[in-house]
Structure formats: structure tokens, C-alpha cells
């Protein structure tokens, strides 16, 4: 585009008003650099616009000037580079500030270093203490665990002892009859004992030796009353079997026997599964 054509294109007017597109601004700036005539024309337009601006100038309120000058004078960084007459007066101030500043920085740095070292030492000390404390804590916890287990064991022994004492009292009661029940022909190894108090009618059972039944089966105690079997209840094996177990009551009996039945007991004894039986003496 030749300079004359550019000048008459109308881009300069839009550029002056500030509404030319970025593309137009680019084109114009290139042309201004290339053709002095275009640059001169742009400058002429600019002067016109500035005359237009100047023509519309309005005197600002006088207090704005006062406030502006006081602001400029009060801002220290604004005074730099300004040929102020009291420069000599200002200079020593700055120097003396720097003098007081530098040693104070040294002091602060030294204090910070001391504090840092102190803090590191304390960190080390407290960390070691913390480690020690953690060991003690572990020990304390294991002691607590063992004490708890001892306590529960001792409770267990106490209950056991009480149960034994109870058993002993029953056995030693002169009213209580002891009925040994040896193994039948089919199970000669088996042995159990019934303790029966005819006056209170209570029956107790002590398992001396019985094989552990399968999970779906349970032993059941029977009393033979006038030739008929009467249910005396099923009983537990395992740990409980070593103790005297309280069974049902009966006022009369000539014989006691134990059979193996399905879990929960049967209405009538299974004679083939009779392990032990014993007659009441006398």
C-alpha cells in the first residue's frame, strides 16, 4: 500500500480515536516506520486531537494542587532524584540510619544463630527422652497385658476353687449316697459316679471317664425308677466334665445309667448305646 493510499484509507482516524483493530494498528505502525509521510500525517492528527483535548481543559480545584504537593513531599521514595535544597540535611540521616541498621542486623543474625543451635540441642535432648519414654511405654503396656492375664487366670482359679469346694461339700454330706457306675460290657473302660441326696432329691454327676462324643451327640443320664427309665437330663463334656454337675431331681431310684443320644437328649434311652450303669447300694 503506497503512503498516499494509506493516509486516505481512514485507518489513521480510527487509530487516533483508539478504536482501530489490532491488525490495523500493526499495519499502521509498519507504514509509519516505512514512510515518513505516514508518520508525519499521524503526528498531525495527534496534534489535532491534543488541541481538541487542550481546548476542553478545565482548571482543577486549587486544593488538588496543595494535596498533591503534600503527598509528593511526604513520600520519601518520591524525593529521590529530586534536586531538593535540603539534600545535605537528608544525607546524614540516611547514612546514620544505615549505620544503626547494619550492627542491628548482625545482632539479629547472631541471636538467630544462637537460638537455632539452642533449638537443635533441645531437639536432640527431647528426641532422646521421647525415645526412652516410648520404650517405657511399651514395657508398661506389656506389663499391663500380663497383669490382666494373671488377674483373669486368678479369677478362673478362684471360681474353680469355689466349684471344687461346692463339690466337696456335696460329697462330704452324710446324707448323700455315692453310686459308682462302671462301664458296661460294650464300653468296659467307661466310668462315672452319681451323688444323690434322697432327702433333697438332688442328683449330681461326676464323669470319671467317658470318650468325647461327636458334635451331634450328647450323653444323657437316666434314673431307673421301678423298672422304668426316667430322664435326668443331658450333660456337658470337656472341661465341665471334671466337676460335679447338677442334674434333675428324683425322689426314688434303684439304678442310674448313661446312654449316648442325639444332641438335646431322647425320650427313651437307646440300650445299645449304654456306656455305664450302677445300682444304688443297700
Amino acid at each position: 500500500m503506497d503512503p498516499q493510499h494509506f493516509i486516505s484509507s481512514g485507518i489513521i482516524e480510527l487509530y487516533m480515536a483508539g478504536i482501530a483493530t489490532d491488525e490495523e494498528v500493526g499495519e499502521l505502525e509498519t507504514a509509519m516506520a516505512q514512510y515518513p509521510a505516514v508518520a508525519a500525517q499521524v503526528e498531525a492528527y495527534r496534534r489535532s486531537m491534543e488541541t481538541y483535548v487542550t481546548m476542553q481543559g478545565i482548571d482543577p480545584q486549587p486544593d488538588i494542587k496543595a494535596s498533591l504537593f503534600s503527598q509528593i513531599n511526604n513520600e520519601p521514595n518520591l524525593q529521590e532524584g529530586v534536586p531538593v535544597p535540603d539534600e545535605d540535611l537528608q544525607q546524614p540521616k540516611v547514612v546514620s540510619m544505615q549505620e544503626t541498621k547494619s550492627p542491628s542486623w548482625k545482632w539479629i543474625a547472631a541471636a538467630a544463630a544462637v537460638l537455632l543451635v539452642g533449638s537443635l540441642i533441645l531437639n536432640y535432648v527431647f528426641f532422646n527422652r521421647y525415645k526412652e519414654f516410648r520404650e517405657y511405654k511399651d514395657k508398661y503396656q506389656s506389663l499391663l497385658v500380663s497383669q490382666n492375664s494373671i488377674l483373669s487366670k486368678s479369677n478362673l482359679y478362684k471360681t474353680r476353687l469355689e466349684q471344687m469346694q461346692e463339690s466337696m461339700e456335696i460329697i462330704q454330706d452324710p446324707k448323700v449316697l455315692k453310686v459308682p457306675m462302671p462301664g458296661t460290657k460294650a464300653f468296659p473302660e467307661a466310668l462315672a459316679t452319681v451323688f444323690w441326696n434322697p432327702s433333697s432329691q438332688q442328683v449330681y454327676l461326676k464323669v470319671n471317664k467317658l470318650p468325647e462324643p461327636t458334635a451331634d451327640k450328647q450323653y444323657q443320664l437316666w434314673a431307673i425308677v421301678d423298672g422304668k427309665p426316667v430322664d435326668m437330663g443331658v450333660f456337658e463334656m470337656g472341661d465341665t466334665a471334671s466337676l460335679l454337675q447338677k442334674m434333675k431331681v428324683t425322689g426314688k431310684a434303684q439304678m442310674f445309667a448313661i446312654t449316648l443320644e442325639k444332641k438335646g437328649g431322647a425320650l427313651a434311652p437307646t440300650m445299645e448305646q449304654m456306656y455305664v450303669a450302677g445300682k444304688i447300694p443297700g
Partner: protein
Amino acid sequence: MYDHYSPALYGVALKVVGEEAAAGDVLQEVFVKIWRNIDRYDASKGRLFTWMLNITRNTAIDSLRSKNHKLEQRVQDVNSVALMYEPQLAVHLSVDHLGLTKVIEKLQKDQRIIIDMAYFKGHTQEEIAKSLEIPLGTVKTRMRNAIIQLRTLLKQV
């Protein structure tokens, strides 16, 4: 320097922000900026007045845009621009330029409005088109004619 340039720069600030108190603040900010950045002014790139004028327009437009009620402001823009052309307000114009003021008065009102919206308020072509309810293409034509007319009038002085 202040006495020489402040009327023109204040006039610009007032045109942009539309109220005297805000324009005063802008003027003060402008002179502080000029003071701080005077070492950055490059005489080979343009005249001092051009440089100061750009600072003023940018500062004033920024101040206007930073106001929260942008939308409200937009609506008022046209009104306040129009108000500036009322004769009683022209009394405030600097006495020195009284002769030149007549030139401005010869410029058609809508030509002044379109120049001022772009030049002072920094509106885009789209914004001017929307505000004056004229097609985008017409904005360009009118702007061109307005500036040519302005130059013609100035040459007569």
C-alpha cells in the same frame, strides 16, 4: 509543569469519570505517576504531552472500570457525556481557550459524542454501536467524518 498541564489533564479525567471528586483523585494519581516515572519518558518516542495524556486516559479509564457498578455506569455514560455539552457547563472551561471553544461548538454534538466515547472513555466500536444504537459499520464512517470535520475546523483558527 502542574500549572501548565493540569487543566487539560483534569478536563480529560473529568470527561472519563464524570464527576469532579473522582476526577480530582485521578489527576492527583496521574501526577504522582508522572513524578515517579519521569525517568522512563523517552523523548524520541513522542512528545511529553502525548505521554502524559496517555497516562491520564489509562488511569481515568482504570479508575472508572474498577468501580463495581459497571452496568450502572454504562447507562449513565451516554447521559453524562451529553451533559458535558450543555452551555452552562462550558462556563467552567479554561478562559485561555475561550476563542477555541467556539470551534468545538461548531462541531456537531453527535460528532463530539462519538469522538469522546472512543477517545476519552476507551469504548470499543462494538460498545459505541450498542450504546448509540447504530450499525457497527456506521461507527467507523461517523468517526472518520467527525475527526475530519474536527481537523477542518481547527485549521480555520
